[in-house]
């Protein structure tokens, strides 16, 4: 504890007594310890402001062009920051175009909702077994689950397509829902969470009270799993809502989800970007609203997953 740590921080205490300097230094170390540190200067906020603008601008750009018309767009490669007034008109044209907009919305809502609920349910069930129940083969089976996450399943589209054709599911929503009813990631995520969040005492108490396993699950495990289950549900919903490759192949234009409909819109009206980007904005809006309300949980979800490992 001799020299003042870093010069620009120490500048302000020049001329003060040694005791005061030491106190400041200790203070700073204490703060650093609690990961607080000094309040950063304006440069930090300027960087963050730029990053925020980069994050938000493309979507706003989409809205700006979606509120415009082809002539204005052609004349102004960089749109005015104030939107033109044609968004409603363009949106109506999207809805009445032949991309089956409402059907796509409905399909996306149904698929994402069912998958989110199902993934949460089955993953919590399996997570409960892996985290808290004893059975033969538990450890290797869990390793297997984790290992399957590294399998690039997108590459099995050919046989999946053949399989779905056999089942008569081509162009049907089942074809995209069923493969996503439970995921390896979900199982792993819930196992991790329940291991530390669900005390054995609770399970034992329920068992002593005469609850069967499934009742224990329903009344004890599910409520305890809620924070992690909410995040898992959110991420599953987003994953389903934004998925394109498989829905594009198996559903096609006959029964599209929103991402498939966007691609159709682009392919059919490529000369009119006001129409296309009005459609893109409409399709993105629901998740942006979800983000407004649940962004905090999403941030926590990403960071938790990163830390727990």
């Amino acid at each position, binding site marked *: 504890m001799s020299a003042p740590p870093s010069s620009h921080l120490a500048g302000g205490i020049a001329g003060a007594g040694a005791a005061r300097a030491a106190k400041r230094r200790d203070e700073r170390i204490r703060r650093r310890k609690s990961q607080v540190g000094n309040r950063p200067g304006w440069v930090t906020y300027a960087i963050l402001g730029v990053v925020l603008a980069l994050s938000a601008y*493309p979507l706003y750009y989409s809205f700006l062009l979606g509120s415009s018309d082809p002539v204005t767009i052609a004349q102004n490669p960089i749109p005015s920051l104030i939107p033109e007034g044609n968004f409603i008109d363009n949106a109506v044209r999207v809805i009445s175009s032949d991309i089956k907009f409402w059907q796509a919305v409905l399909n996306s809502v149904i698929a994402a909702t069912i998958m989110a609920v199902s993934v949460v349910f089955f993953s919590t069930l399996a997570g409960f077994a892996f985290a808290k*129940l004893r059975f033969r083969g538990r450890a290797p089976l869990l390793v297997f689950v*984790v290992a399957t996450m590294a399998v690039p399943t997108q590459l099995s589209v050919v046989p999946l397509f053949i399989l779905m054709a056999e089942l008569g599911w081509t162009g049907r929503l089942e074809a995209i829902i069923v493969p996503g009813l439970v995921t390896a990631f979900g199982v792993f995520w819930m196992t991790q969470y329940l291991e530390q969040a669900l005390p054995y005492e609770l399970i034992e108490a329920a068992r002593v009270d005469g609850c069967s396993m499934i009742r224990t699950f329903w009344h004890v495990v599910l409520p305890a799993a809620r924070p992690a289950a909410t995040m898992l549900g959110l991420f599953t919903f987003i994953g389903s809502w934004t998925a394109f490759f498989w829905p*594009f192949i198996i559903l096609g234009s006959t029964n599209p989800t929103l991402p498939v409909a966007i691609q159709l819109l*682009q392919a059919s009206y490529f000369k009119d970007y006001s129409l296309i980007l009005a459609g893109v904005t409409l399709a993105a809006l629901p998740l942006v609203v979800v983000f407004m309300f649940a962004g905090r949980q999403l941030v926590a979800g990403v960071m938790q*997953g990163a830390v727990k*490992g």
Partner: protein
Amino acid sequence: MATVTEPAPSTTPTPPPGKSLPLTRRQRMSALDVKLSPYLYISPFFILFAVLGLFPLVYTLWVSLHDWNLIGGKGEFVGMANYAQVVQQEFFWRGMRNTFSIFLISGVTQTLAALALAAVLNQNIRAKTFWRMGVLLPFVIAPVAVGVIFNKMFADQNGFFNELLGYVGLGPVAWHAGVLESHVAIATMVNFRWTGYVTLIFLAAMQAIPTELYEAALLDGASRIRQFISITVPMLRPTIIFVVITATIGGLQIFDEPRVFDQTGLGGSDRQWMTVTMYIYELGWGPTKSFGRAAAVSWILFLIIILVGAINFWLTRRIASGDSKKVAAPAAPAPTQAAAPGAGAVASAEPTRKAAAANNDAKETTS
């Protein structure tokens, strides 16, 4: 209640609770319940994976050895002919080149940008959650939507970016016509959606770094930059490598963004941005409708991804054993890059509660 929530499509009887049964029978049932329930609970995943994960993967191999048509169905057994045929195609190699090029451009820039941004966010800033949400916002926008938007912004004529470049006196860039240019454009789309996500993973890992290290550096008079290079980056190494592995699995399968980089979806007039997955689609569902060849390319790409993954894993092990930190099991390679929470892998885990007393920030990450 129990019957309503009966989870698995299984014939195994779980005892209906609440019914009064003779005690001995009940006890027997209870023992059975304890014994069978775990298997019942994990079975949905394993059944689904077996039918829609493992079986198709093996079946891909089978299809690739046949003359197999989208409409005509299975034809003759042709051995390795499909493989031999596709590796002679110029488009196959072009697809490989494009895929790796896009992946490398996006991977390197994304990792560096995310590291820098995480360091910025790892300060004692005001409105932490607000800024963190800000970087994560693009994640909720579908890759297809991102692709369509950026396709317009990167327009070769009258495009947003070319206009911006024009202001600073740089000539218009042929974002679509050029090879490297189109790769940069597509890598930008990927980075737009994923940089914030990766940033938060790095940020979480940074917060798990023991503060004693910084304390010592502070006493030694190390600057912030020096601390970042000599402490933060080495301590993040396992997480960085993990992120790279996850990105590899997703990145080498890239399809959505390049598919909508123009309205035809073929990957450009000269296939300058056609990726391998786009090539698989074109083989199977394009004019040739050859499932056999599509399956062959799928298997080749599958093996490449496994190989790259194995190299990465080996690398991770080596580096991890060099460090005191262990790399835990991976977390989240979901759909594209990692469309689910979590991914990183720092064994030492959560920011310490105690240290977080005065710090509501940690509450967000641990609650």
